[in-house]
């Protein structure tokens, strides 16, 4: 299985890579949206994990481009940004937008390995299921 991680934080990318290695994933880590999209042109990936705050191109645009290029690949949108939206008083607007752009599932940073593995499993499952349902993974303190 192949995973593409697009995150501008070198250390987070490496940590995800370490976790995915234990799950028998080969991981390509792209620091920028453009290199991630380039990687996607080079080979087929089973899952793409993309951060929403990337330099050069926003994660939302990245998701849109990935979706155009690989309509079937499960995309996990992740972000360390949590904020209370003034209007709806919810933290989900940003990630809802990611879903509208084509993300399969989203996950809040920081997350545990099991939450990441669960999200990957759910996104692979979702690809097979015709009707996607809302799943949100939150780290319980």
């Amino acid at each position, binding site marked *: 299985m192949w995973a593409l991680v697009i995150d501008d934080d*070198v250390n987070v990318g490496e940590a995800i890579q370490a976790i995915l290695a234990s799950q028998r994933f080969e991981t390509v880590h792209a620091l920028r949206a453009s290199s991630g999209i380039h990687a996607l042109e080079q080979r087929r990936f089973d899952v793409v994990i993309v951060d929403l705050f990337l330099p050069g191109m926003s994660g939302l645009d990245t998701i849109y481009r990935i979706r155009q290029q690989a309509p079937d690949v499960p995309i996990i949108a992740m972000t360390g940004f949590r904020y209370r939206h003034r209007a709806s008083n919810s933290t989900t607007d940003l990630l809802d937008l990611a879903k509208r752009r084509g993300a399969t599932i989203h996950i809040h940073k920081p997350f545990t390995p099991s939450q990441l593995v669960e999200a990957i499993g759910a996104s692979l499952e979702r690809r097979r299921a015709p009707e996607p349902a809302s799943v949100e993974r939150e780290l319980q303190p």
Partner: protein
Amino acid sequence: MRSASQSPDNRVEDVCASDIAADLDALPACAQPDCSQLTVDEVGSAIAHQVTEPLTALLLYLHELKRTTALPGPSGALPALIESAIGEAERACAIIARISESFQWSGEPELAIVRGRQAIRWLKRGGIGEQVSGDQSPEFASLTTRERQVLDLVSSGASSKEGALRLKISPRTFEAHRAQVMRKLGARNTAELVRMVFVGGLSA
């Protein structure tokens, strides 16, 4: 794999409105906003975001450490210590989550993303330079002024393109300087280089 068609559940109604974000990144540093042009909420969220990144890596590594030490073999007091370390990391995660959720963003999420990225860029530009130049190890002393500038930028998360733009040199030249810094400091990769800066490993 490449296809122009969209599957029904991946229908995209709105096109890339936030391509403006790419244009913002291309602006020279002097044209980027400073702190006074950002709101308290934006700065607060950006700070929480920046702390969340290392916390994410820490949490992942600790759990992986726990998993690998749970394998058969003598490990002594390690499991209990790892359990405590995970407890502390999760406590820090919960604190930062509570802090970040106390900040509000008004306006559209698209705008919030663009402004959030501006705030992160502002944070990355500040503060870190002093930390690097404070290191007086022989390895660090061997760096040229240009190499120190490159190290400053790399450790603050700048890409080759961003760093090159800041120093008004080509990305290839920037990468050549970075390679030279890594060789002098004995770092195997960029991540190790960044770690060296932050944990003071330059004098090790």
